[in-house]
């Protein structure tokens, strides 16, 4: 794969990852959130594959496979099942409304470019141009977690953030050492499963997954 082709494909994949993240902000149905996350993970896998092909690193193929299995297949399936069992379909009245959210996403992307500047300056990898995009995904994920009412959307926001961080690792250092990669994979899996358990419990105890109802503990 030529350098030029690699850079273009990689940038395309990363931009689509960011786009899917922002897509979550302008839609307001929970099935759409889960699907956007699944698509985002798919584009992320493609991004990893471009790097894997270019650098001929076998570990990255393994990582791509793990991310695919976990974030494109397993987690979205569980999320959809949880969504149907909990019976939540629409995000009603998020803490920040849709136009403001999308605008803020734009500002966060600019912020990402500012924050990533020293990193891009230092790096000499061909993927460095997309590093700010990874940061933007992280910030957008954070924003989703903080501004949405439904516990399920908060989980999705956290997963988007994790995608962004993993993307950063791939872009900046062609992935972290394998043992750390495995550990992170396990952590995300376990963390997600535990959050799922809590999601069911919240539904069972409060009758809704609207986190605004959980305000009993105050100071």
């Amino acid at each position, binding site marked *: 794969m030529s350098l030029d082709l690699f850079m273009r494909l990689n940038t395309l994949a990363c931009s689509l990852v960011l786009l899917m993240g922002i897509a979550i902000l302008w839609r307001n149905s929970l099935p759409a959130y889960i699907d956007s996350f699944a698509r985002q993970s798919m584009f992320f896998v493609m991004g990893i594959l471009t790097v894997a092909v270019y650098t001929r690193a076998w570990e990255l193929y393994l990582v791509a496979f793990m991310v695919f299995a976990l974030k494109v297949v397993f987690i979205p399936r569980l999320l959809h099942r949880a969504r149907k069992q909990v019976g939540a379909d629409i995000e009603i009245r998020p803490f920040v409304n849709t136009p403001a959210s999308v605008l803020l996403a734009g500002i966060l992307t600019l912020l990402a470019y500012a924050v990533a500047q020293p990193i891009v300056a230092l790096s000499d990898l061909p993927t460095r141009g997309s590093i700010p995009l990874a940061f933007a995904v992280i910030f957008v994920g954070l924003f989703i977690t903080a501004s949405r009412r439904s516990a399920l959307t908060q989980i999705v926001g956290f997963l988007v953030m994790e995608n962004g961080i993993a993307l950063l690792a791939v872009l900046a250092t062609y992935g972290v050492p394998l043992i750390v990669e495995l*550990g*992170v994979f396990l952590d995300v899996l376990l963390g997600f499963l535990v959050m799922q358990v*809590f999601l069911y419990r919240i539904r069972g*105890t409060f009758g809704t997954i609207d986190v605004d109802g959980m305000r009993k503990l105050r100071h």
Partner: protein
Amino acid sequence: MLLILPLTGALVSLLNPRQRLTGLIGAVLAGAEFVLCLEISRECLTRHVPAYGSGAFLRADALSAVIALIVSGVAWISIWFGVEYMNHARSAGHIDDSGIRRYYVLTHLFVFTMLLAVTANNVGVMWVATEATTIATALLIGLQHSKSSLEASWKYILIGSVGIALAFIGTVLGYFNFFEHVGATDFALNWTVLSQVAPKLNGDVLRLCFVFILIGYGTKAGLAPMYTWLPDAHSEAPAPISSMMSGSLLVVALYSILRWKVVVDARLGGAYSSRMMVVIGAFSVAVAALLLIRQASYKRMLAYSSVEHVGLMCLGFGLGAGGAFAALLHMLGHAAAKSLMFLLSGSILAKYRSTRISSVRNLIGIMPWSGCLFFIGGLALLGMPPFSLFLSEFMILLAGFRSRQPWLMGFILMLLLVIFVSVLGYLNRILHGKPPENVAVGDLNRGGLLALSLNVAALVTVGLMYPPPLVQLLRQAAEIVQR
């Protein structure tokens, strides 16, 4: 070898249906872990750093040894106390058999992850272990399925995971920095390797890296303004878990920050990281002082006290070598005192069936031994002599004056005074007054009280006699943090 023990404990708890036996085995194992940590400390004192595995995968230098001591010590006392406490909870119907089994399994796993975090050489593995502690403790907080504990554990796992994710960004940036200068090697994330290479790393990226590390791990440590999960989580968790979280988990998170501080300082000099830690530490103490003024629940009061003390520790680490030593001493003292208080709060809850300070009166009369210990623990937390916290707080202030920050130290002193007045008021209300009706007189959990007397003994011994081996170990650890 140390790590096998808590894993065995978890396995035993999983397989053994007999609750009483499981609890006792757990307490014994925890005691053995503590003894092993003492052994590791002894080895460190002889200047030999125990390491294990290829490329020193597990490595325990003086700093690890100190934290491991704290973790295993608090775990031992808490598990010991927890045996009777959980039995009581089960007979009172608060929790069922499967809940108790989950408690034991998760507690041992929790200890395992904490010990792994402090003995791992690889900062990536350290990260993985820290995230694992979040998962284990989130399940433990929500052990008793009540509305408030569910809210607390949800907030905890969400905020905790976000914080840990930020810490991972910092880790990736650190690795990236290394990668740019040295290339990908197998042991790149070993912090021993990182600190050696540090002077050659890029300063700007390292600055950014430390910001993410401080905010990320600081979230787990309970520093302001990321502490919001702490009062909920520590007050809703069962007493032995709160004591372990306040006593050791917060300290483990600080440890992670310290490991990175060493790397960053090697390149940027101490000023950058110290300044940030001083600011965040002081801010945490201020927030805690303000929020302690009006507290309705004694468990939340203890939780905010943890925020205060962690703030003091963070402050100490930013104040030079003397401050680092004092902060380490403070970690020890706080672990002993806070675990004592949280475990006793469990007894109080079991006896008075309320978490409100207004409902708890005349503790001295109703539970004489517990009340006495509670009073002692409260005094210790307030920094009274002859307990070690007095020494460590004094030393932190001294270090502050030595670093030419008299105004800041004056501010801290004032905050400590505010906290003193607030907490003393709460203590007074809890210990004295007219006893409420339909509360039976008599101490609960005599066996556990024996464990707590060890805490008091530790506080007094360190505070009064300042044992040389301990001081030597702390000094070595402080040297690692602040060259």
